């Protein structure tokens, strides 16, 4: 048990270290923007008709703590984020980033996690089936789909679906909410409306993850099925689905759980572009808006950090899960 706690703590520290490195990257990105926040605030005031001098800018910099050296500013940022979960203000929009993101980020995360679950619900049975079947047509079809998962990026798939739906159904299938619910508070009706529209982004985002997961599951199953313990089990008279689920499927589950974090990474990768095409109003779209239009690095940095943090969290949870589930790892840790 002690060893297990030790393992958990080491993992937690590793995750924290990863987050620190990521925060350094994100923060350096924010600092690279040509004009700093003080200049931007005052530039805004300038447009309101106030006269701005160099001293004003210096005073504003002092007020915002921008005159301090880089490591200290980074430390403050990290401290605020890690301890209070506060990302500060966006210079461009002059709003608190937490307020700006709030449920938009949760919607994004929900859609992405749903896409992840969707892809595995599809991939695990299909992958196992294709590993056990000797039907060449099915196998080649699945192989082809997996290749297409790479060749047809999610955003192109979204475009093609939109093309077909506009040509054949005169409906462009965009947005996350209908007009009457866009600004309404969360309610059951709004949630149902959301669900009726969210299936497309979920499918599109899950698309390439599904294709990859199918290939992983298939390869793992093929490896395990050829092993002697499966032959031994089948010699003992276990056959069919029972044999598959009890032996090889159980063993190939480990690496699959391990790859969840990277699949989430892949889904996040496509989130902004898909959001742009399907005109979703959530964190991915905000990210594009922040980067491509308003050059709002504070907001962009916060979003990238949050996305990465959720991947780190998923990795941490899957590591622990794996340690608990796999008897080989468990034996080594718990003793």
């Amino acid at each position, binding site marked *: 048990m002690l060893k297990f706690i030790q393992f958990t703590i080491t993992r937690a520290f*590793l995750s924290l*270290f*990863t987050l620190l*490195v*990521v925060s350094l*990257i*994100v923060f350096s*990105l924010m600092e*690279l*923007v040509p004009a700093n926040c003080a200049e931007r605030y005052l530039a805004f005031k300038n447009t309101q008709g106030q006269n701005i001098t160099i001293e004003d800018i210096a005073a504003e910099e002092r007020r915002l703590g921008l005159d301090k050296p880089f490591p200290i500013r980074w430390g403050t940022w990290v401290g605020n984020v890690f301890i209070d979960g506060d990302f500060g203000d966006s210079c461009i929009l002059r709003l608190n980033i937490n307020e700006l993101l709030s449920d938009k980020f949760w919607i994004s995360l929900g859609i992405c996690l749903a896409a992840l679950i969707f892809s595995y619900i599809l991939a695990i049975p299909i992958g196992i089936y294709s590993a056990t079947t000797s039907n060449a047509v099915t196998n*080649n079809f699945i*192989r*082809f789909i997996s*290749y*297409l998962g*790479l*060749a*047809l*990026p999610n*955003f*192109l798939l979204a*475009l*093609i679906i*939109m*093309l077909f739906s*506009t*040509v054949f159904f005169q409906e*462009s299938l965009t947005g996350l909410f209908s007009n009457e619910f866009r600004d309404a508070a969360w309610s059951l009706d709004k949630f149902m409306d959301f669900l009726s529209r969210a299936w497309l982004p979920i499918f599109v985002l899950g698309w390439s993850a599904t294709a990859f997961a199918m290939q992983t599951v298939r390869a793992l199953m093929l490896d395990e099925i050829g092993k002697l313990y499966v032959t031994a089990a089948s010699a003992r008279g276990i056959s069919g689905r029972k044999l598959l689920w009890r032996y090889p499927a159980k063993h190939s589950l480990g690496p699959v759980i391990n790859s969840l*974090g990277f699949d989430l*990474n*892949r889904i*996040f*990768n*496509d*989130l*902004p*572009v898909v959001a*742009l*095409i399907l005109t979703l109003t959530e964190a991915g779209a905000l*990210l*594009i808006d922040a*980067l*491509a239009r308003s*050059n709002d*690095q504070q907001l*962009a*940095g916060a*979003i*990238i950090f949050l*996305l*990465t943090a959720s*991947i*780190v969290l998923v*990795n941490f949870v899957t590591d622990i899960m794996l340690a608990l589930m796999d008897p080989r790892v468990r034996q080594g840790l718990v003793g």
Partner: protein
Amino acid sequence: MGIFSKTKPVENSQDLKESYFTASQGQLIRSRFKSNRTAMIAGWALTVMILIGLFAPFLSPYEPTMGGRDKSYENGPPQFPKFWDENGFSARPFLYTTERKRSIKTNFRWVLTENREKRRYLELWVDDWEYSFIDLNIDLPGTTFDFELKTLTFKKHLFGMDKGGIHLFGTEKSGKDIFSRTLHAIYTSLAVGTLGVLLSFVLALVIGGVAGYYGGWIDSILQMITDAIRTVPPIPLFMALAAFMPDEWSAETRFFFIATILGLIGWPTLARRIRTHLLSERSQEYVLAAELSGASASHVIRKHLLPSFTSYIIVDLMITFPYVVRSETALSFIGLGLTDPVNSLGSLMQNVSKADVLLNYQWYFIPVIFFIAFVLAFVFVGDGLRDASDPYSHTK
């Protein structure tokens, strides 16, 4: 191991066995690759596409930039040359003359009408706009390093019309020829991919090489950093970096910048594989022998360890390539990547999600087909090479 793979012929004769055992590594890989039909087809498709990309200016009848736009044929549908119609047969393929009108009847929108009586004929080997195969124009901040190089300039094009224009894939809203733009975009994707992959390869080699060769705490620290970078979703990170490009940068500078950031972020996966391979290889006896005879670390890495997995690296590069192209396409698509006059598949598709385009101008989607074919070809060739370079693959 491909979709259409045949069963291997039984090697019964003594000669075949002999040649199998005496064949060099390269010969074995080549023969295994050739027996994979999917990979071979993909290989040919890829070769054709690379050639199309390289000879894009010769094959395309118009300049892909604003200079080549056809003012009288904006948002025009694709034109297919015909050999016959109700007015008779022609040995030379022809198109009809189109006229553009707008009046109260058409609600003041430009409407194209075909005049079936007036034929225009296709010509081969025509003189048109000028292009150079080597056109380097480096314009860094400051003037010391600026230089221009323009050679191999030609004016010949494969085909054109005797009068008016020919637009095989139609035109977009400012009248630029989509066919010419697609061909040039293939070239751009190839160039960005090659540059990005090479850069990330060098980085991966250095970082993975150091981690794998020295092992111990250096390896642990490098691995922790590599893993941290690997967790960040790359496309949002690309976007954040690309957002720094000042608007006044020229298209060429943007191109190099994009290729650089693609390379700078693409290395972790490759570095990890190189490191794993080196770790398992460095405990082999031939490395020990080299070290005992006083070889330096860099000598051992370069002369002994690297050659042990060159084929492995080549395969990895082939597999990384489509990812780089994909990332570039995504970047250009959202407007943070390459811009006019450099064409990329992403910037070609920039406006296609508008309702107007979806409903009326579906030919904007033609480049998508090329993109998919391009990436699929790379994936199949990469896969075929991986199977071929694995000496145990045929026993599976």
